């Protein structure tokens, strides 16, 4: 009983004490679906996409220079892969109190200015971000539909040159999508991305 109680304490207190140190999903893990508010005011979840084979999920935001540098490439990924069964979903993980430029209103503006072809969701509680284990923006995840459940196939960055898309020599998302679309196991399934750390809410 004591051990069980101890375990419960650990289970319940650890994520609260350590908001930016949760490990999050690994490649191969099943992910929980989410329901988050889109810039059009409607809630979006993965389950609504009846036809999707999977998703490219991008934790990104308005303000991070790396998100800005990758913005067009994120738009292009949706244009390229939505028709192949892998639509892109963008999620802004930042606390707008810490980064006013990432408020919901600013997201609405941004999505309309840049004509985002994908939903741009706000993760107000930051729970989805924490579950995924996203640490910076932009942080990409590819999930595959496995009989109604979604399984992580890739975690990391888009390519190896944030400054200039045409100078990138490794295209991690494209390579992973090529593997997925040809029914193969993703060869490079995890990379790291330099970007802006996610602005977590103050715990106090």
């Amino acid at each position, binding site marked *: 009983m004591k051990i069980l109680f101890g375990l419960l304490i650990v289970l319940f207190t650890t994520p609260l004490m350590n908001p930016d140190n949760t490990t999050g999903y690994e490649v191969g893990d099943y992910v929980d679906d989410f329901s988050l508010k889109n810039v059009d005011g409607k809630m979006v979840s993965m389950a609504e996409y009846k036809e999707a084979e999977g998703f490219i999920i991008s934790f990104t935001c308005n303000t991070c220079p790396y998100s800005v540098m990758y913005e067009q490439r994120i738009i292009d990924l949706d244009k390229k892969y939505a028709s192949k069964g892998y639509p892109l979903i963008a999620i802004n993980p930042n606390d707008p109190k810490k*980064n006013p430029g990432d408020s919901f209103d600013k997201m609405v503006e941004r999505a309309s200015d840049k004509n985002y072809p994908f939903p741009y969701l706000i993760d107000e509680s930051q729970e989805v971000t924490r579950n995924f284990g996203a*640490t910076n923006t932009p942080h990409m995840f590819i999930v595959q539909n496995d009989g109604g459940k979604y399984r992580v196939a890739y975690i990391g*960055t888009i390519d*190896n040159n944030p400054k200039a898309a045409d100078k990138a020599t490794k295209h991690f998302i494209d390579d992973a999508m090529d593997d997925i679309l040809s029914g193969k196991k993703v060869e490079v399934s995890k*990379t*790291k991305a*330099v970007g*802006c*750390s996610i602005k977590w809410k103050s715990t106090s």
Partner: protein
Amino acid sequence: MNSRYIFSNNRYMLKYSIIISFLSIINFSVSAQSVEIIDVEDMESIIHEKTGKTRVINFWATWCKPCIEELPYFEAVNQSSEFEDIEVILISLDFAEDIDTKVKKYIEKKSLTSTVKLLDNVDYNSWIDKVDPSWSGAIPATLVVNNSVNKRIFFEKQFEESELQNVLKNFEKEINQTNR
């Protein structure tokens, strides 16, 4: 003849050296800090060099708000007599083309005296693990290392001032204990 030539030559040299040293003073006051552009190999030697001193290597960029917020604490460590055995090296991940317009400008504005270097390599996956395998890639990130005693700690977080000071005090204390 010969000696007169040498004499006049020396006078010229003296004159020139006065001018040169005067120019270098002007130059020094204009750009108080130089920022060396380094590659991954240079970064690795900074991380692994055995200098006998503890190195605090902070990864930052001018565009990174939390980095800019914590930078004064690192500068304070660099200037503090309490931490005189600690060497602070700030490695900027700004782009090399922004070195004058952003990095040096910021250094001058804040009168930073810590060593600043700019790592010119955007292929992050080729070097992130060389700093620390646990690093996700988010900045700020800080490596505290003393290669003479093979001790290192890595932090992927933004520091508060007291917290940074405590980490460094404990690090130095542990080194002194192991040395005994």
